[in-house]
């Protein structure tokens, strides 16, 4: 193996800006062959920009990269792949209607001599070989649709291996895996390292990063916050480097906190494979944080409450009245609002204007007799919303939301729901993909909301966000409620441990 002095990948002083805003300031890091580098940082810290540069999706303005000792400047993803850089994304890039072996070779099937026929025997043999290497015991002719999420990920890794990847970048690989699958993944990564493959491992699950990586690089606001061998770092230190400031300054103080009447409750909510006997309640003016890894059932729980997904058993009560067999409409009529995690897919009609989106969930309030809409009222309420949300535009009637920034889009979604004056507002990842400034505004809006007496169920992957905003934090793991933390200051490690599904017993007293 190569010595420690000659890293396989070296990134030096890379800088990148979009529209005049620098998102990456002179970032440098390096990975050795056969070693793993953990890359951590909050959303918006510059991780994905760095990875896009590595993958050839975008090009840096300054700085240089070296791969295996040679200058590396991929102009597009194909060049990156040819250089031996492979990505395992959270969203797997597999064709479900093809078999495992076909997925491995879909863009470059080996042929039988000059005939345009697939050399089935060749791909069978090499597929079996790489599947053995990633320890995946399925037949190469199995349809990917029939595999579990973890198995699919192994197929993706096998694909990288079969392409002779020399650097494999994992982006949040464990979010939708079961624990045994995670353990298996780590074993595979270990094996890849032994083969001399360099690994970059990106994750919010810091324990995972610590257990997989030799070195950890922390990014913050586009800057390099620090790099150190993992043995020199504690979890607390990593978090401190990631956050870089005290939580209090980011999360605005609320005038009044918690403690109203119990306004919403869920008891015994169960759905096979998704949730098991989930019970909790929320008071008026209270923010309850829901912590859990992605894939823990957080979003699914919210969707069941809002009537988007079915559930087998359980009782939901709001304002003292049971909400039986909820549909989105009946949930809304009962006073529930729901900001989904998928803003583009479910939150907004991207081709429609700000005002059209603003009133979409509250059309009745701007409609007169026969459901005729009052256009002036629509403009007026949309303008009100825009100013209350401090939207970047006031041309609400002719600005399509797709032309707004992520933060402003999110404000439109929130504004749309606030028009209904919800009793309970479920916020699923309200700050995902928006910049720090917009985040703070969203926090301010949430606080305003509870001060006026609404209850909030806040779902977030960012534990700091949960701790900064919530009155109480619930931990969910594999569809089960595994802990409830109600004393400020929160015990971050306990929450994380509970959410990660370890130390369940201690946390759940």
């Amino acid at each position: 193996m190569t010595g420690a002095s000659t890293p396989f990948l070296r990134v030096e002083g890379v800088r990148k800006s979009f529209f005049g805003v620098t998102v990456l300031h002179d970032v440098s890091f390096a990975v050795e062959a056969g070693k793993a580098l953990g890359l951590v940082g909050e959303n918006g810290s510059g991780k994905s920009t760095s990875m896009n540069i590595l993958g050839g999706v975008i090009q840096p303005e300054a700085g240089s990269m070296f791969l295996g000792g040679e200058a590396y400047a991929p102009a597009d993803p194909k060049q990156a792949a040819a250089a031996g850089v492979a990505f395992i994304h959270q969203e797997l890039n597999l064709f479900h209607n093809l078999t495992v072996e076909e997925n491995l070779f879909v863009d470059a099937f080996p042929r039988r001599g000059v005939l345009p026929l697939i050399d089935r025997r060749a791909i069978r043999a090499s597929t079996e070989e790489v599947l053995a290497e990633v320890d995946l015991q399925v037949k190469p002719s199995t349809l990917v649709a029939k595999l579990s999420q973890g198995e699919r990920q192994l197929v993706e890794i096998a694909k990288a291996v079969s392409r002779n990847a020399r650097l494999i970048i994992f982006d949040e690989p464990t979010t939708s895996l079961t624990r045994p699958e995670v353990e298996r993944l780590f074993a595979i990564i270990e094996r890849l390292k032994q083969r001399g493959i360099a690994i970059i491992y990106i994750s919010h699950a810091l324990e995972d990063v610590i257990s997989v990586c030799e070195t950890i690089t922390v990014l913050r606001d586009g800057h390099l916050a620090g790099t150190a061998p993992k043995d020199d770092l504690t979890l607390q230190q990593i978090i401190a480097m990631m956050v870089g400031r005290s939580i209090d300054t980011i999360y605005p103080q609320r005038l009044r906190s918690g403690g109203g009447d119990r306004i919403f409750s869920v008891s015994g909510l169960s759905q096979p494979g998704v949730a098991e006997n989930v019970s909790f309640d929320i008071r008026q003016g209270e923010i309850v944080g829901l912590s859990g890894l992605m894939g823990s059932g957080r979003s699914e729980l919210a969707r069941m409450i809002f009537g988007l997904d079915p559930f087998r058993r359980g009782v939901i009560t709001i304002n003292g009245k049971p909400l039986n067999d909820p549909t989105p409409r009946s949930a809304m009529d009962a006073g529930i609002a729901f900001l989904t995690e998928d803003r583009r897919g479910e939150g907004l009609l991207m081709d429609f204007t700000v005002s059209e989106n603003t009133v979409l969930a509250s059309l009745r309030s701007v409609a007169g007799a026969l459901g005729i809409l009052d256009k002036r009222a629509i403009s007026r309420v949309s303008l009100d919303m825009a100013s209350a949300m401090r939207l970047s535009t006031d041309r609400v009637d002719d600005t399509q939301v797709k032309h707004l920034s992520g933060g402003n889009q999110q404000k439109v979604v929130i504004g749309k729901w606030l028009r209904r004056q919800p009793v309970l507002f479920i916020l699923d990842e309200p700050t995902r993909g928006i910049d720090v400034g917009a985040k703070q505004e969203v926090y301010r809006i949430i606080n305003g909301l509870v001060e006026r007496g609404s209850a909030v169920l806040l779902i977030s992957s960012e534990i700091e966000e949960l701790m900064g905003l919530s009155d109480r934090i619930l931990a969910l793991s594999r569809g089960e409620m595994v802990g409830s933390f109600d004393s400020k200051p929160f015990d971050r490690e306990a929450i994380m441990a509970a959410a990660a599904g370890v130390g369940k017993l201690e946390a759940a007293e």
Partner: protein
Amino acid sequence: MKIGSRALLLILQNAPYILFVVLLVVFGLMSDRFFAIANFRNIIIQAAPIAILAIGMTFVLLTAQIDLSVGGIMYLTATVLALYMTGAPWPVGLAAVIFMGGFIGALNGVVVTRLGVASFIVTLATLFILRGIAMYLSNTRTLMFGDEILTLNRATVLGIPSAIFAFLVVFAVAWVILHQTPFGRQVYAVGGDPEAARKAGLPVARIVFFCFVIAGICAGVGGFVSITQIGAVGPKYGDQIEFSAIAAAVLGGVSLFGGRGSVAGTVFGAILIKSVQNGLNIINADPYIYPLVTAAIIFLAVAIDGLRTRIIERLERRTIRPVSVE
């Protein structure tokens, strides 16, 4: 419960086949002539043109596109054949038809992939343009074919009637293309997830383009097989056949949304449709109920398929925790 829906799924998955068997039994009970070997040969001969057309349609449907112009391609190529190539030996005619069909398919493909116009409207428009051109050329007459073409119908290859032979060849070639060539697997990839296909660096536009070319070729060949049977081409030739071809493909499990289905299924669908017609003929059913029965069977098969996908969706809904078997 879970096991119950699995069993239900198994039934639904094979519903078109069950439907087929039921139909066979019903027709068989109503006429002892239905089950004759010669009759099944008849059914397959009659299904050959539509099956060939539907095989081409399958390629297009697999990429989540649609080709409504196949009837027009069939009419135009057969008309050109009847007008300008009456004296030519049949292999020349067949080659001409393949070339013309492929060329027209390529035009469809170019407009769809290069200009990005919805294939539904492109091929609906070319359907009318092609029929118009064919009517112009033939002056809307019915044109007759000579013995060169007509005797083909009674010819056999290795003891197999020529129509069945042609159909088997097209089926085999299509099957090999779809299952044994890189192109074929990429067709499935493009239809299954166009975005992922683009990310994987597949030439999506080129793949879609060639599917239209194949559909055009199949329309030409299907038309050719058809004229060996009916010996003439007139203004009603191939009229509405695009709907039968689509119905055959969908009956055989091809999804209109791309990525799902096979040519074997399509061939089955075509045979199912022709069996219904044949059965109604054999039992001398009231002529008025033909379209009703055919439509009802298509409806039933697709309804079952809809139910099936719904159950699959339910079964494959992402689970977070192990499901306890109740």
